[in-house]
């Protein structure tokens, strides 16, 4: 009798491996914590132990002379909360006297920030794409402006963000513009590269049809550039989330992840797990956006064989 074969969907394996890695990281985290002596500063067995009122050197110190070996990262519960606590705190209200779960607050904040990120992503994407087309057609403009485009990315975002807020106010538009700032550069560079990727014979073919530059752009260059553009869009997707969070910091906006991070940072001592839970949601937001772009890529570039 033949064994039935169940066809697993394509995404099954990657998701499984991803979850496996998360589990391994969690085990590594807790494992590292186990290596710490009570108090979290020293390697287990090398730190001083309290006996009654006195402090006595630890067992490893007394036996083989390994005394007070500093751990590279402090492993106490304040610096490195237990994974379990991070998860549990998500399903508790962060504020005393309120029933709203941290989960709800983080979800709403993530969605709010995601919207700003998407707005910034679209603006930066359109700008990057347009600049790519302009530079591909004008060597002069490319040589003149590209250095400035590159230099723009060397200015720290944390310095620019407050300036944008001062110019445009503390609203979602400023945040989107700050996100766009991080987004447009990879798109520009990759669009330019992609538009220039067709081989000379492909261009000669177009010339033999007496094609106009418009024809050549939209029938040859842009389709050839799509794989490059989508690579840049994937980078920009995650960059836009980062940009949006940073943009929120000086903006005074209360509804996004930026404010939540600021709050939990300020009150870190009273609930370190909450900040870590927020970090988790922020990265999930970035991943979700990345996933959306990956799906869109499969829709637009369905002609490629599976291994490209």
């Amino acid at each position, binding site marked *: 009798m033949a064994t039935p074969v169940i066809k697993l969907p394509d995404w099954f394996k990657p998701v499984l491996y991803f979850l496996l890695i998360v589990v391994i990281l969690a085990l590594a985290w807790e494992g590292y914590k186990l290596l710490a002596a009570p108090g979290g500063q020293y390697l287990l067995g090398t730190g001083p132990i309290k006996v009654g009122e006195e402090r006595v050197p630890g067992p490893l110190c007394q036996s083989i002379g390994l005394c007070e070996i500093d751990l590279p990262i402090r492993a106490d519960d304040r610096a490195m909360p237990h994974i379990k606590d991070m998860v549990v705190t998500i399903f508790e209200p962060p504020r005393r006297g309120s029933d709203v779960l941290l989960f709800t607050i983080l979800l709403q904040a993530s969605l709010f920030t995601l919207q700003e990120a998407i707005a910034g992503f679209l603006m930066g994407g359109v700008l990057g794409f347009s600049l790519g087309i302009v530079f591909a057609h004008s060597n002069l403009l490319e040589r003149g402006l590209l250095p400035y485009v590159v230099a723009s990315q060397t200015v720290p975002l944390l310095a620019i963000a407050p300036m944008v807020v001062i110019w445009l106010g503390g609203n979602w538009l400023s945040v989107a513009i700050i996100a766009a700032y991080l987004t447009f550069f990879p798109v520009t560079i990759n669009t330019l590269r992609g538009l220039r990727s067709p*081989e000379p*014979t*492909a261009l*000669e*073919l*177009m*010339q*033999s*049809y*007496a*094609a106009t530059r418009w*024809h050549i752009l939209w*029938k*040859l260059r842009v*389709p*050839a550039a*799509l794989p490059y553009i989508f690579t840049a869009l994937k980078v920009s997707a995650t960059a836009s989330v980062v940009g949006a969070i940073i943009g929120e910091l000086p903006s005074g906006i209360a509804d996004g992840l930026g404010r939540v991070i600021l709050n939990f940072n300020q009150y870190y001592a009273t609930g370190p797990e909450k900040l870590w839970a927020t970090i988790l949601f922020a990265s999930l937001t970035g991943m979700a956006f990345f996933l959306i772009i990956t799906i869109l890529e499969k829709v637009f*570039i369905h*002609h*490629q*064989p599976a291994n490209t």
Partner: protein
Amino acid sequence: MTEPTVSIQNVNKIFGQGTNNEVHALKDINLEIQPNEFISLIGPSGCGKSTLLRVVGDLITPTTGAITVNGKNAHQARLTRDYGMVFQAATLYEWRTVAKNVQLPLEIMNYSKQEKEARTNKMLALVELDEFHKHYPWQLSGGMQQRVAIARALAFEPSLLLMDEPFGALDEMTRERMNFELLSIWTKTNTTVIFVTHSITEAVFLSTRVAVMSARPGRLVHDIKIDLPQPRDNDTRENVRFFELETEVREALRESEGRRE
């Protein structure tokens, strides 16, 4: 006498004129090609045959001399889409299906939807790829891709076909088959063909005329009429006259390689 389809007069091409890297690719080329001829350009590597092809196609401007195609200059001929080109690499667009690839020139030349479909179907039938309309280039073999490239070049029914070693990248068996198909297409469509090749056998088998070029600077040193009967077939290759002509071309090539100025 009929007007020649292509008239090449005193054409010279010098690349990088005035710089240190001056290359005299073509020297004093004079050639007349009659309607419905199948002429092969053969010569040692670097002799300028591809350059000459591109000069005829107005993809490269000659330094001196004039090209007339169908009574117009080369530039005009390109703008009125008098010729189709096929390269050694099929250069199909990988994001388009076979049918859409064939339609590419038709889109640029603004044919109507019905015309586009009709011509695509006709051309794909001509190259015997009817069932592959919806396939993508990566799903086809090299020979099939070249057939699509030929279908595409003929889709807008040009009177002149410029082919630059189109079967160079294919294996021997496929190449021989493609030679047959090309000849059958040529007789059916009444085009004039300028065919660049490295292969003596191919040149003699396909052509009505073989033009032999010298090494750089490329000059036309021999013009050999191929008087084998049409239609050409498997027996043609085993014809005594075929070997005689092959030898004639081979000797002309050897002579031209010896002559370097």
